[in-house]
């Protein structure tokens, strides 16, 4: 027993020492980098979507590098939690995988929080969702939305099913059992994927749109990495994951119109660019909630994407807060910011046309 106690003491002491060292080095940095390259200062907090976490962390690191007087934080509490905290004025900005809606009065409450300024809601993070599968000897699998829905609703159970064969003429398909893999945790990826299925093939996919996977009996894994790991491990497995995380897995092409499309960043950005605004949700000058055109037949688009929004106000009571939020969001939607997110988080950069549409919202931020 006493040996364990000594170990515990040792561990505690080393943690303490590390903590002290970390504090020391960070205070050193502040003192040496005293002259900041900009006059921005203060602490800004954001919260919300876990999908945006990697991108937000990269943006914050870059932004703090350029503006040493600023401390930014992003708490990945989840989209719902982020919206709640934004409405309660607990955070200056929020990230959300779904646009604010009037269903639970969130849109009205958020607009009220920003009064007398305007509410800002702009897409800032777009990520294609890839269909990954594990079938040795079958490359470039092609799937129509109907077949995809039947596979994930467990209606099709073997790989040599007629429906899959019809999508892949001339391909020799094995009789392996299909293991559909879904997320076991609640996620925006699941929500966007089920939304795609229920909009494009409602007669095949009868389940509700939900962040919780609605079909029972499939293989479930936690997080994007868990899904990728499960598909890698199981022969005959198929799953959905952020395209950037697909790694070495084979990625299926999904039928859009007459062609089969791959989940590239350009194709994902293009579908958002071609989508109309959701009139019901876009209540406000700077509220740009897109109604993704999942049924698009336009060539070069890929409709299974996750769109995440940045939510902020045009008016903040303190000048430093307004300036910092403005500068930060300007950086986020800028080509450099979007490129950084593409590199670090595998998102699809906003197209030039879309950047042009969202820029006025960010430029409207002022103190008051």
């Amino acid at each position: 027993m006493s040996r364990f106690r000594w170990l515990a003491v040792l561990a505690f002491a080393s943690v303490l020492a590390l903590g002290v060292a970390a504090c020391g080095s960070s205070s050193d940095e502040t003192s040496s980098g005293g002259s900041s390259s900009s006059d921005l200062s203060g602490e800004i907090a954001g919260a919300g979507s876990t999908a945006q976490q990697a991108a937000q962390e990269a943006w914050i690191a870059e932004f703090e590098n350029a503006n040493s007087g600023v401390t930014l934080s992003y708490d990945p509490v989840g989209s719902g939690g982020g919206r709640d905290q934004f409405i309660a004025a607990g955070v200056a900005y929020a990230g959300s995988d779904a646009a604010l809606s009037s269903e639970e009065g969130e849109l009205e409450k958020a607009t009220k929080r920003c009064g007398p300024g305007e509410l800002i809601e702009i897409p800032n993070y777009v990520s294609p969702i890839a269909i990954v599968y594990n079938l040795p000897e079958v490359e470039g699998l092609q799937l129509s939305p109907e077949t995809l829905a039947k596979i994930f609703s467990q209606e099709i159970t073997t790989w040599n099913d007629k429906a899959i064969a019809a999508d892949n003429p001339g391909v020799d398909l094995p009789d392996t059992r299909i293991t559909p893999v879904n997320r076991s945790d609640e996620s925006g990826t699941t929500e966007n994927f089920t939304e795609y299925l229920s909009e494009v093939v409602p007669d095949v996919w009868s389940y509700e749109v939900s962040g919780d996977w609605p079909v029972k009996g499939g293989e479930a894994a936690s997080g994007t990495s868990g899904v990728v790991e499960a598909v890698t491990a199981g022969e005959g497995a198929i799953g959905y994951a952020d395209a950037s995380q697909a790694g070495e897995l084979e990625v299926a092409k999904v039928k859009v119109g007459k062609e089969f499309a791959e989940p590239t960043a350009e194709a994902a950005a293009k579908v958002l660019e071609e989508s109309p605004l959701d009139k019901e949700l876009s209540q406000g000058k700077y509220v740009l909630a897109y109604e993704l055109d999942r049924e698009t037949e336009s060539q070069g688009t890929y409709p299974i994407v996750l769109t995440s929004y940045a939510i902020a106000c045009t008016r903040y009571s303190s000048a430093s807060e307004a300036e910092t939020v403005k500068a930060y969001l300007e950086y986020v939607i800028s080509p450099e910011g979007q490129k950084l997110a593409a590199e670090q988080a595998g998102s699809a950069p906003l197209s030039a046309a879309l950047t042009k549409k969202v820029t006025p919202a960010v430029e409207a931020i002022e103190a008051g």
Partner: protein
Amino acid sequence: MAQVDTTTNAGQLLAAASGGRRRPGDRIFSNTATAAAVTILALLAGVAIFLVAEGLPAVTAAASELPGGKSLLDYVAPLAFGTVLAATFAALIAVPLAVAVALFITHIAPPRIALTLGYLVDLLAAIPSIVYGLWGIFVLGPAAVPVMRWLEEHLGFIPIFEGPASVTGRTMFVAGLVLAVMILPIVSAVAREVFSQTPRKLQEGAQALGATRWEMIRMTVLPFGRSSVISGAMLGLGRALGETMAVTIILSVSGAVSFNLISQANPSTIAANIALNFPESSGIAINLLIATGLVLFAITLVTNMGARAIIARQNRG
């Protein structure tokens, strides 16, 4: 029992020697010990109050207000089932193994090997559960796939091996095995401690009467250690009931209520379900998760009380 008597005697002797007065050292010691005990109680009460207060909104809410539109009972029942199934399966594997390991270390192995082995078993407890989880999905899971296929083929008539066998190995079977490895050191440490205290007189007496080593162990060591082994098993069961990270990572959960250990459709456990759904939950959904935590608290409490009752009966009889 004999030991307890000696300590009491020594205590009385000491008290008599000091003239019956309590020394300052005694007072400080007794006060510190009392304070520690009170702190434990206060902590436990604090956790219970938190669970009840935060879980209450979900308990009183109508089913339609809860996410998924299911009542609390419908929501928590499959989770509680999964929790108990995983923990029981783990304990069924770990306890006999732990007792065997403890017997080997205390009565069979040569001293040097016994010492090393005991140290290694203790080391198992020092591995973080997330590492066990990763080991489960990267190593044990894939390795168990052919085993589970074999079980499905040859023992498929038994409901627990009904299949169809998972191709990824993220099953209740693998999760239970990993949990068994995790609780092994606790159970075996308790068993080892008590087996080594079996009175020499009894052991030598048994051997003098012509008992073989196995007969000696069966007649003296096992009965002497029985109640401690039970309480060790319950400690292990408690750990398995509450284990979160390893199960979260390994188990493929789909809410199915089934004894089938080797398929991809498994019930989730309460702790894993909280870990999986907390990050994207808000409002009443969090209250619901905390209410399930209260149920886990109750299950663990009942398990421990059951263990106490069994031990008390053993000691009386």
